[in-house]
């Protein structure tokens, strides 16, 4: 029996999808692959959540193109998370997407939460002032403590790797490169499980330590690489 009148609760883990829905995502079925990959990540997330009984996993999603808007907000319990497809078109206002995320991190995070996990998926270069928004994210306490994974999709030359690397400031692993739909699906599933498990462990480390996430060990896609972006 707990102390009478005491509210004991599990810690909340907030998971954010930041998804590129710009016009270039219409190329080679990228947006369809993205929708499919997010949908396929749900069972893995459920499993990851059930393996962490002391954490309550909430999923949020936002898309950015010529503007940024929430797709799932406020965050829903992973058990209740469904994915309705997003469509592509417009510019790549990634900075606006990060600003929208910052608004949420600055105002809606319970103080005893676990570090949030943020997964950014994009195939191109930001059309707006990404670095200004990134600077805001770095100044936000929860942004600074977050676990950030950037997944670039499409040909090497099309993705802005500098942006992807800067987004993953203070992380020990490099941005991930998905050349095809199978890799994208694997990476998103990996990010939504390993990063969740890592963040929800609640394990402390000294100040200035970077968040340790083991790099993904993915199987070679020999037979069916799926759509090549």
């Amino acid at each position: 029996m707990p102390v009478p009148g005491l509210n004991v609760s599990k810690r909340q883990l907030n998971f954010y999808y930041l998804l590129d829905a710009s016009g270039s995502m219409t190329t080679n079925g990228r947006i369809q692959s993205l929708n499919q990959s997010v949908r396929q990540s749900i069972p893995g997330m459920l499993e990851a959540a059930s393996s962490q009984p002391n954490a309550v996993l909430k999923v949020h999603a936002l898309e950015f193109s010529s503007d940024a808007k929430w797709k799932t907000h406020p965050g829903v319990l992973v058990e209740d998370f469904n994915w309705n497809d997003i469509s592509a078109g417009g510019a790549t206002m990634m900075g606006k997407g990060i600003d929208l995320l910052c608004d949420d991190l600055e105002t809606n995070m319970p103080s005893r939460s676990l570090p949030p996990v943020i997964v950014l998926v994009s195939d191109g270069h930001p059309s707006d002032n990404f670095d200004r928004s990134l600077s805001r994210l770095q100044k936000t306490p929860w942004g600074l403590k977050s676990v950030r994974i950037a997944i670039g999709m499409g040909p090497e030359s099309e993705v802005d790797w500098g942006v992807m690397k800067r987004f993953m400031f203070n992380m020990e692993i490099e941005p991930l490169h998905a050349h095809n739909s199978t890799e994208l699906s694997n990476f998103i599933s990996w990010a939504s499980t390993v990063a969740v498990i890592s963040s929800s462990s609640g394990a402390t480390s000294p100040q200035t330590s970077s968040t340790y996430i083991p790099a993904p060990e993915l199987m070679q896609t020999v037979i069916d690489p799926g759509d090549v972006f």
Partner: protein
Amino acid sequence: MTKPLILHSSVIGNTHIRKKLPNQDSADSWISPKGDAWIAVIADGHGSSGHPYSDIGSKLATKITVNNYQSFYNNSTSTNTIGVDLINFKHDFFLKILNEWRRDCMLDYESKHPQGTSKKAELLSDSQILRLYGSTICYVYKLSDSIIISTLGDSSVFVRNESGLISHLLFNDESPGESTNSLCQKNPEVDIEHQIIFDSNNFILISTDGIIKSLDNTNEFHKIADYYYKLISSSSSDSKIINDLNEQLDYFSKNGSGDDCTALLIYQGLSTIDSLKTKPESFITNPSVSFEPTLTRQKKTIIIGLSLLLLLLILTIPLLIFQLTAISKPRILNLMKEMGTSKLARKICQK
């Protein structure tokens, strides 16, 4: 003279049970035979994978802290020694703990990895080795007529005074996320926080972060402090309190944060020694206020008194001089004229 009551309990976190990890928290305490000196300490070894020996690190931290305090006590005639400079003592005491902790961690590592057995192990720098043992530390001890609370990291410290008011002390490291200050970091002496309170009938509760992370907000912790204060002051037996504490911590571990949970209770309600009868209440509302020992306070009062007197003199002397000169200038002139020094007198007066 009655001894204070110090009780502590530590349970392994639910997360650590699943991962087959040991309890990385540690707690220890010591009370002198006379009850005139005591220390209580908790430490929380870092849970992330980069700190595989943090359970040893936390145990070393608590053991070294208690041993050092005992040595100090044994080498002093009494902890009520008036000459002890608290400001320097708390700093030096921490440095002593830190140095011994570093030394013992290195020794432990060497014993685990004897020379020639692993090249990888030998390649680690001293700071990398110490990181393997990373731990927070929080200790409370009696010195002179004060109680010193020192904490490095994210432990919680709550003090309930005689009036029933509870203050949450030393909470600067309550930033969101899982990073905290640690014994293994560079220059931890810069980040350790100290608080000095009067030795009075306090009830002190210190705990590792596993408990506070199980609660919605800090105010919930007040309920825990109140609950145990009532339990202890109602003369419950030590074993009953410990059993209750074990159950509570187990509940936090399973239904809350899942982290290791350690709590340490210090009850001075039975103590009558050296209690100050008058105590400012300001520390209840302002946790950053530190309380100096009586001797320093007396000195301060004398200094303030003398300063006020000096200020009064400085203010009144010019007035007196002005008054005197206004009344007696003609008199002085006449007197000086009589003495044949009129020229000189005029010059003085002109000036």
